[in-house]
């Protein structure tokens, strides 16, 4: 299958230093937060690619750069052959915009509280001029609302009249309104209760089957990712540390961080499985440890890990995995 989305060496640096005047008066220097640091992956047409990681791993920043809400500091996002960053392709990008949509984490913030639901859902239709005539637009909105499991009459209500799950359905209807093909889902269910989460996840999968949608799925919940994704990238401090097919990652995690993360998930099965005890916490991303960012917490860390950043080779960025001979050698 061909890649619909190619992300090439994406990087984003935030200036988190104090304001200039404070720096001059109180001392201190420029500080930069490398939220995303050299992320490369691609998403095939019709698949669900998931980025999973803990807070501060940069997964949401990647999502925002992919849809174009945030300009990357360097690197490139190419969607269906069109660069999202190249100024020469501005016109092609404008046409592309209709085909990319996003579903946000907090359904209470992603719908304008002053708009009625039909206005929210019809806004993309009007913006891209997809349908002419009020009556046809209304019919289409009703159709979209039924598609996501709401009632066509629900368009007359305001967002505050809906529960969290119903709002997320409205947000999905809005994403479908522009006939999008590629939808970036940023933690779409983490604000929802489990029974509602199941409804939304099932709905998203049904819609994927029906319209051949491609998803970039961002989540911190490994079980949800397991359920949704065909391929998964694990992020730690702005880098992808492991990429694998879903089954492979869960059955045979290779990077020690992935193993630790999988071990930490509270388990419903109560299998009493052996797990790697979790050590330490995520370091401050403004001042990450040298070498591999995971080395202070890693049970396999050796000298090289503290000096040199591991490359992503064959789906894993880990010296211990990629150069086991050196790891075994006495330090």
């Amino acid at each position, binding site marked *: 299958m061909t890649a619909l989305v190619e992300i090439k060496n994406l990087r984003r640096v935030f200036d988190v230093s104090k304001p200039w005047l404070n720096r001059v008066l109180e001392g201190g220097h420029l500080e930069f937060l490398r939220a995303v640091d050299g992320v490369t992956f691609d998403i095939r047409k019709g698949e669900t690619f998931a980025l999973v990681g803990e807070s501060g791993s940069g997964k949401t920043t990647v999502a925002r750069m992919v849809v174009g809400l945030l300009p990357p500091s360097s690197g490139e996002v190419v969607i269906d052959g069109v660069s999202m960053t190249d100024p020469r392709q501005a016109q092609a990008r404008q046409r592309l915009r209709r085909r990319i949509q996003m579903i946000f984490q907090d359904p209470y913030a992603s719908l304008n509280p002053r708009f009625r639901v039909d206005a929210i859902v019809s806004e993309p239709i009007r913006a891209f001029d997809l349908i002419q005539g009020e009556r046809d637009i209304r019919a289409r909105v009703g159709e979209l609302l039924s598609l996501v499991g709401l009632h066509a009459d629900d368009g007359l209500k305001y967002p505050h009249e809906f529960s969290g799950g119903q709002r997320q359905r409205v947000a999905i209807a809005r994403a479908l309104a522009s006939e999008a093909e590629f939808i970036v889902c940023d933690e779409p269910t983490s604000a929802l209760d489990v029974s509602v989460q199941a409804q939304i996840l099932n709905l998203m999968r049904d819609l994927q089957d029906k319209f051949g949608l491609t998803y970039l799925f961002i989540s911190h919940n490994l079980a949800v990712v397991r359920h949704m994704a065909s391929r998964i990238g694990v992020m730690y401090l702005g880098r992808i540390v492991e990429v694998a097919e879903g089954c492979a990652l869960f059955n045979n995690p290779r990077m020690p961080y992935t193993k630790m993360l999988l071990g930490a998930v509270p388990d*419903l099965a109560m299998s009493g499985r052996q797990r790697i005890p979790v050590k330490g916490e995520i370091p401050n991303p403004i001042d990450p440890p040298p070498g591999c960012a995971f080395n202070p917490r890693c049970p396999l860390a050796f000298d090289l890990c503290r000096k040199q950043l591991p490359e992503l080779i064959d789906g894993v960025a880990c010296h211990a995995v990629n150069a086991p001979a050196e790891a075994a050698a006495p330090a």
Partner: protein
Amino acid sequence: MTVPVLSVRDLKVEFVTRRATLRAIDGVSFDIAKGEVLGVVGESGAGKSVTGLAVIGLIDPPGRISGGEILLSGMRIDHLPAEEIRRVRGKRIGMIFQDPLTSLNPLYRIGDQIVETIRTHTNLSESAARKRAIDLLAEVGIPAPEKRVDGYPHEFSGGMRQRVVIALAICAEPELIIADEPTTALDVSVQAQIIALIKRLGRDHGTAVMLVTHDMGVIAETCDRVAVMYSGRIAEIGPVQDVVRNPLHPYAKGLMGAIPTLAGEDKRLVQIPGSMPRLSAIPPGCPFNPRCAFAFDRCRVERPEPLPNGAQAVACHLYDRAAEESAA
């Protein structure tokens, strides 16, 4: 049989609003024995947090406890005057909340906060209390406690702060700890550490723990028994193994099936249609009946009471009927 540490009998909590009186908790009963961890699980609006707040006497107007009893080691505490319940709260019941920052004063060193709490509830000297504070910080797994004791809350990471809050909660050696979503704000890897800590403390000190959370995984890892709440009532209560592996109540069944698991293959999740009713629109009879695939006439009229069924107790007419039939 020994007296349970916490015994809640037919608890009712109401919130008076201008439109109606909303019953957030409607006849909840459970016990927690010494050293036992009871999980209270439910979706938002199920009343799990309100139950916790009611036990520690923190229901603020317009809310009020409108019925039932709460007994702490046999002593009734639900109608104590504010001053006395405050003493009980610090000394005999420890609290851990979701956001550790709300429990810590940002302007005081954490050591001073712990020392103050210890000295309020015991007659230890200043230096003995400080020594105890350091021991406590070591016990909850804070590295270099003799140095960190003089740190301010903002100098700690989220997980470390939650450990400090736990140290505060256990410093007066309480009989009961109420933990309301203690791991929800934390990352998975830190969450596992906090769960292990709470579990260990309960075991080592024989403290009873009431763990309120929406995360069934946390319950399965931590608790001895679990109560599944729905619309202010207990739908099912029993040993955690039984409830998780073999849930009886249709809601509990749906809930377990709705949770994606790591082992779960690429299959559709079980889904319960609709969502929990708002407090202002709880249907008559069993509150779950409009969403229940097995509902029959009686469910729409008569409210089911929790009846024992093996080691579990279930509030569902399905099992009621089964019991009747087998008796006949």
